[in-house]
């Protein structure tokens, strides 16, 4: 409902900001004759007034056509996204899934056993996991598992073969495991101390029913609001992961597209990112409604 105007604002801002940057997509050190420059600009409609280019772009966008890439000649932005998005989608989803399972488990255990070892230990590791950036953990993993042990390849996509997925998924998942562990622990502690759980315990419910049937949903709620945008972000890829492992995703296009002034590419993936965030936030809202009866009852 609000989605369309939001997308319009995103597209306009991206378009405007990019065109405002000095330098154009066909500025090279070795200059070409003006006639040829004119011909290229005509082909890409760069010779039209800015408002016309903008309207033309919006028109194409309405048809789902994100335009041609300026950097990769004879390739469309749709095609670049079509080949790159699945890479990020697979790696990102696996990473988040792993993060939810491992992080959730660790966090819950930490909340249940408030002892030194099971609580402080994992939480210390969690802080490490959040603080150490991916461009350190990534190369470290490559150094150990690929360069020294030769157990796993040092990068590449190879159509998504499992061997090639392990290291990038691990590197990407680590900070999320840490976040989710901490979040789960915090939520779990609060939930376990809440009146309705204490009541259920007093009633003598077995621990398993307690956790799975009663505590799980309230614990999941803060996770869901975190995971919505996290999914969107992970789906558009991480520049660092793609760069370190040499993966053909779309995350690096945010950077290289801007540097190369590939107007259509940058606006295209920005619009995509915006759409994904909107979509996943909506999904998160729906999950919220399902998880929390109070939300349903309110509306």
């Amino acid at each position, binding site marked *: 409902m609000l989605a369309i105007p939001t997308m319009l604002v995103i597209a306009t801002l991206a378009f405007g900001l990019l065109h405002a*940057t000095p330098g154009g997509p066909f500025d090279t050190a070795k200059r070409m*004759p003006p*006639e040829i420059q004119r011909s290229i600009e005509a082909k890409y409609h760069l010779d039209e007034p800015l408002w016309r280019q903008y309207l033309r772009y919006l028109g194409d966008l309405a048809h789902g056509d994100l335009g041609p890439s300026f950097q990769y000649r004879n390739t469309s932005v749709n095609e670049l996204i079509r*080949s790159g998005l699945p890479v990020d989608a697979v790696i990102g989803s696996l990473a988040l899934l792993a993060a939810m399972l491992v992080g959730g488990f660790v966090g819950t255990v930490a909340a249940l056993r408030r002892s030194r070892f099971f609580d402080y230990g994992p939480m210390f590791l969690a802080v490490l996991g959040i603080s150490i950036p991916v461009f350190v953990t990534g*190369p470290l993993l490559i150094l150990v598992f690929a360069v020294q042990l030769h157990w796993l390849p040092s990068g590449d996509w190879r159509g998504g073969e499992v061997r090639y997925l392990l290291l990038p998924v691990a590197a990407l998942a680590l900070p999320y495991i840490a976040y989710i562990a901490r979040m789960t622990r915090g939520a779990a502690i609060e939930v376990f101390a809440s009146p309705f759980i204490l009541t259920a315990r007093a009633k003598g419910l077995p621990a398993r029913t307690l956790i799975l049937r009663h505590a799980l949903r309230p614990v999941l709620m803060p996770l869901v609001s975190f995971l919505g945008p996290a999914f969107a972000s992970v789906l558009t890829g991480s520049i660092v992961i793609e760069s370190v492992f040499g993966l053909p995703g779309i995350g690096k296009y945010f950077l290289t597209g801007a540097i190369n002034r590939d107007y259509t590419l940058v606006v295209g993936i920005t619009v995509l990112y915006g759409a994904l965030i909107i979509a996943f936030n909506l999904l998160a809202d729906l999950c919220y409604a399902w998880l929390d009866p109070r939300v349903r009852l309110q509306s």
Partner: protein
Amino acid sequence: MVSLASCGGDAPGSDVPATPAIRVGAGLAADQTLRRAIDSMPRSLDPTLLTDSPAQKVLDDLFEGLTAIGLDGSMVPGVAASWEVSADGKNWVFHLRPEARWSNGDPVTSADFIYAWRREVDPKTGAEYAQALAPIVGAMAIATGHAPVASLGVDAPDPLTVHIALNSPTPYLLFLLADSFMQPLHRATIERWGDDWTRPEHWVSNGPFVVKEVVIDDRISLVKNPLYWNAASVRPARVDYFPLDTLTQVGRFMAGDIQFASIFPNSQFRWLKSRLGEQVVTGPYLAISQMAVNMQGPPFGMSRDLRLALNLALDRTILADKVREGLQLPAFSLIPPLPGYRQQVPEWASWSDERRHAEARRLYAAAGYSPAHPLRIQVDYPTNEDNRDVYDAITAMWLTNLGAQVEPYNEEFRVLVQNLRLHKSALFQDSWVGDYPDPFTFLQLFQTGFDQNFGAYSDPAYDALLAAAAQESDPARRFQFFEQAERRLNEEGASIPVLYYASRHLVKPYVKGWQLNIQDRIVSRYMYLLEHEGR
């Protein structure tokens, strides 16, 4: 890799165990698949639309022009088996070999070359390197839209003969003919498929390899072309190119996933040398890193003394040995070492440091500067990790040796190029990679009116020397004119040469059949893999 390497700066390799040794046998490996890295993904595999060096590397394996690149980087007969040049050096006739074939079986004919060259200069194609054909009669008139495409000074009297008419003797023509934009094209394929003709399923080329698969930003896979006229001499069965940035190339190489890296970070040279020994390969490269000045206004346009002062005050041997760790050579004049050409090294290059600094200070004072009134200016250079340490050192030298306050300022490459076009910068990096191994590609930079003459340098005496060289068909006398021209640039302080670049590669010890050359064009067809243990 980055963090470990830069942490261990003083004691290279102390925190990382050495890579295990690789044992190389004598026979050929069973799997002759070459895995090479390139710096970035080619923008397009259409030779006419070539702009970037990674694309040229891949295209060198896919197409063959009238001339081809030999094992040592020299020009050897390609599609043309022989050729003659007229006495005045302006007319060349090439005789094509009848056995040359496209990968779909069609014979390669002279019409394929005419078609490709016309396509290159036609403004409608939008080829960014069209002016490379400037030596050919009519090329620039067509490219600027003043003449029809058919008026290009090339013709095909018969299917096996190509005639080229040149504006003036062009000794480097044979090198130009091996460049991607001079290679033949299969007209029927392009007319049928249009912009999509470069897709693997439509691909037709005449070189040692053809395209099998392209995954953008992941790999380009080539396989041997069985119909190439010299297919028997092509050694690899398959070549995979991986577009990777410099740090990732190092990691992949050390893991054994690639065998031939196209680059490594300058700052890791010592560290890599200590870990990998002879697998680190460097050699002279036909390129110079230099600074140029804006000649149209103060402070440099009017003051030769100031230009020379800055020139003499640079301690290039320190830059080469300490900042670049011996990887690059000091440059005292414009033209990098070229066979047959006598470099015009200025006299002050061999002076002692004290004498040189004293003279620099004298010139600085003569230009009107002093400690009370120092030069305050900015030097603009493109943002790049490798550049920053050099410019920090350069500006520190000027401060120490002269008292000049020069502020290093880095800008993103395209922003810098735009500022240079608008002549907004007084002092800037003006590095240049030679297009062919001839002094003219460098000297042209200072010709009045040349497009990339960003400093607007203009000297009628210099232009006259270049014009005289252009009409000279005797190679020795031509080089003499060039030597005089280079001397003139040195005397006038036209630019501030800094370092000559080096080509740098990482190569596994079991990869053979390659040689370094100054243009860094190492083609895959001669390369082969020996059997080996370890990665």
